[in-house]
């Protein structure tokens, strides 16, 4: 018997495992995918070594990756990190597309994540209570703040101190500074729109490697922007290169790959989870592992499916689902609300290196009360570049030969990419259920995912695009492209909310320690726990909750409270 089982080895599971192991617990980590070998990380590949110029064969793309191919990070150099949709089916209503982007392997999506790293604020944790939407978070910013510190220090976050209530500062390494195009934009935006700020994107790449980072075998970011292929320098945080090795070093971790969780074993007599039923992905052999505590970090939809598939006579609606909230309140961020603009009067300068981040515009709507036609707010990620090269010449009719080469040698005009990220409200009708008849190849029920944006999101999306254009034009930009509809639900790859935290056990699944209200030794610290989405990229919050809950669980275990 293990002290603890952690389901999932990704962003949340890696931290849960590390923190539990460091507290002396014997921990089993179950990963449904395979191991990752050093050669699977392809950041060593020069551009001319990319298979098929980086492109996945068209027939393979259509057959195996119709959903995953919507993610910018999928290429012939990264496909080993994405599931084949053909092997991992799920269902949606015909009129409600959902893009479920997944990576099933040791480290999960933390290998390909976008690395943008932002804290939620007090405003976010009190939002549901203030608006009467969803369940009131049982924690506030002060509860999580020290754990944000703890995680930022461990993973390494580069960013600037800004003193903003809506986007608290943290334990930062120096930022990747704004380039001159961005500084000009910052000046124009901040003078034209008081209250708005353009700051360096906060990113989990080591601008500097401090002593404790070097001790983990990590080196400073080499400014290559190859991150989704993995990193031989271990310069960005991933579970694969950072959290799991830390857990490993304690000698307390056992990690089993190809271990697909079927369900949890619940003992109604003690009302405790006693074990985890696992199917071997390759042999299909069944095994049950036992532990005193279980952490589900299987990802938002994965965790909901495990709970629902663990229904029993004692808990017929699914494990820890007396509230009927498991699977409900599925959220994401509105994504792909894009504005692209060129700046003919940009500064006559350039930059060196391929920075792994850009700029960030923190939320500025509804900060001190309700002022808009919609609840909550949004932020933007973006950046300025002068790419030039082939992208600059392909669209010019009649440009060939020596003239084409000469033109491609020139720096392009400063070009801004500006993408809005909008908060999505919790809505119990946006939900994951188990499809009643269709199974996957291991005999497990397929997910049925039914989610759509609502009126609040529609109004917010319009404002995001109005503001994007206004800021570009105020800074002298000429808007060349906009996308006015958010991408499919899920494509923000910030899915969350299917086992929400809350104060009231009748309307929420988890209490203030990420412990299920119904089953005391079952903890959930992945995105499922989120009671609201904020508009900030959520991985940091998942990691902070994982560390905090692991600390609490270890104490409860030591006190005999579990």
């Amino acid at each position: 018997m293990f002290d603890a089982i952690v389901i999932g080895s990704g962003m949340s599971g890696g931290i849960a495992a590390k923190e539990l192991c460091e507290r002396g617990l014997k921990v089993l980590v179950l990963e449904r995918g395979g191991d990752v070998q050093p050669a699977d990380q392809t950041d060593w590949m020069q551009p001319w070594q990319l298979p098929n110029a980086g492109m996945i064969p068209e027939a393979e793309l259509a057959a195996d990756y119709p959903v995953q191919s919507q993610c910018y990070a999928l290429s012939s150099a990264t496909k080993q990190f994405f599931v084949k949709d053909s092997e991992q089916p799920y269902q949606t209503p015909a009129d409600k597309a959902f893009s479920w982007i997944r990576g099933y392997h040791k480290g999960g999506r933390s290998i390909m994540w976008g690395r943008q790293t932002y804290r939620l604020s007090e405003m976010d944790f009190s939002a549901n209570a203030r608006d009467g939407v969803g369940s009131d978070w049982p924690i506030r910013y002060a509860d999580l703040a020290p754990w944000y510190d703890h995680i930022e220090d461990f993973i390494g976050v580069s960013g600037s101190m800004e003193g903003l209530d809506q986007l608290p500062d943290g334990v930062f390494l120096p930022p990747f500074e704004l380039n001159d195009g961005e500084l000009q934009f910052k000046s124009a935006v901040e003078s034209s729109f008081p209250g708005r700020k353009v700051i360096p994107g906060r990113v989990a790449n080591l601008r500097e490697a401090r002593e404790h980072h070097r001790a983990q075998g990590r080196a400073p970011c080499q400014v290559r922007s190859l991150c989704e292929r993995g990193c031989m320098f271990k310069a960005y945080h991933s579970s694969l290169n950072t959290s799991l090795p830390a857990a490993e070093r304690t000698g307390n971790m056992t990690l089993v790959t190809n271990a697909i969780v079927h369900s949890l074993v619940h003992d109604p007599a003690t009302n405790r989870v006693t074990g985890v039923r696992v199917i071997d992905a390759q042999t299909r052999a069944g095994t049950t592992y036992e532990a005193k505590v279980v952490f589900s970090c299987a990802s938002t939809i994965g965790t909901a499916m495990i709970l629902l598939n663990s229904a029993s006579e004692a808990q017929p609606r699914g494990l820890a689902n007396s509230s009927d909230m498991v699977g409900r309140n599925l959220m994401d961020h509105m994504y792909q609300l894009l504005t692209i603009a060129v700046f003919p009067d940009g500064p006559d300068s350039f930059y060196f290196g391929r920075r792994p981040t850009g700029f960030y515009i923190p939320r500025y709507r509804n900060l001190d009360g309700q002022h808009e036609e919609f609840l909550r707010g949004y932020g933007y990620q973006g950046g300025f570049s002068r790419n030039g090269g082939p992208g600059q010449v392909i669209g010019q009719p009649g440009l060939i030969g020596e003239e084409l080469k000469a033109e491609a040698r020139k720096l392009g005009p400063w070009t801004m990419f500006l993408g809005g990220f909008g908060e999505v409200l919790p809505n119990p009708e946006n939900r994951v259920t188990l499809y009643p008849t269709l199974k996957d190849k291991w005999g497990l029920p397929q997910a049925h995912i039914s989610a759509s944006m609502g009126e609040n999101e529609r109004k917010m999306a319009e404002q995001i695009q109005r503001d994007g254009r206004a800021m570009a034009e105020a800074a002298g930009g000429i808007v060349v492209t906009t996308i006015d509809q958010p991408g499919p639900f899920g494509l923000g790859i910030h899915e969350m909310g299917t086992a929400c935290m809350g104060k009231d056990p009748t309307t929420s699944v988890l209490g203030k320690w990420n412990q299920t209200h119904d089953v005391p030794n079952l903890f959930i610290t992945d995105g499922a726990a989120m009671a609201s989405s904020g508009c900030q990229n959520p991985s940091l919050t998942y990691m902070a909750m994982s560390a905090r809950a692991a600390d609490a669980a270890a104490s409860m275990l030591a006190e005999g409270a579990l």
Partner: protein
Amino acid sequence: MGAKGVDRRTLLARALLLVGASVVSLPFEALAAVEADLLSDTQRATLVAAADTLVPQTDTPGAVDVGVPALFEGLLANWAAPATATALADVLDRLAALGGGFAALSAAERKATLQAFDAAALAPSDAPRANPFGPPPAADPAYQQFKELVLTLYYLSQPALTQELAYTHVPGRWESSVIVTSATRPQGGPGMF
């Protein structure tokens, strides 16, 4: 490499000689995986001539020098779906007919002919923009794709990235402001900012 590959190498070499290219530096391993002859001799000769005309040798290597025709055939064999391969082969057929036999024209004639074709083919179209990061919709999407593939293969090559552009695989540092001089070149490679 099987006998068929050798045949293809010979055929390609013959086509390359038409434009005076050296065959020494070509990445022939790109052909190793090709199972079937996807292009006729005429299409292959047209591919070489078009690549050479689009990106000729100047003070730096051109598309043929860096092996774009062989790499393009590799894409036809290993990347393109049948409909795409057919459309691209059709582009080659249309290019082959230019000037009564495109591959046989002088370099100057090829350039004048292809420039006119290119200008018409890439004239803006009212079609919806499929990819906000890609080029604007053009009158002849198949030719646009052909040209984009040729340019992509060229500008992903080591000579183009390091001689035409200033690619460094491991920049090692971020400098947020650099003075522009006459020697400043785009960095190429991945990354948006």
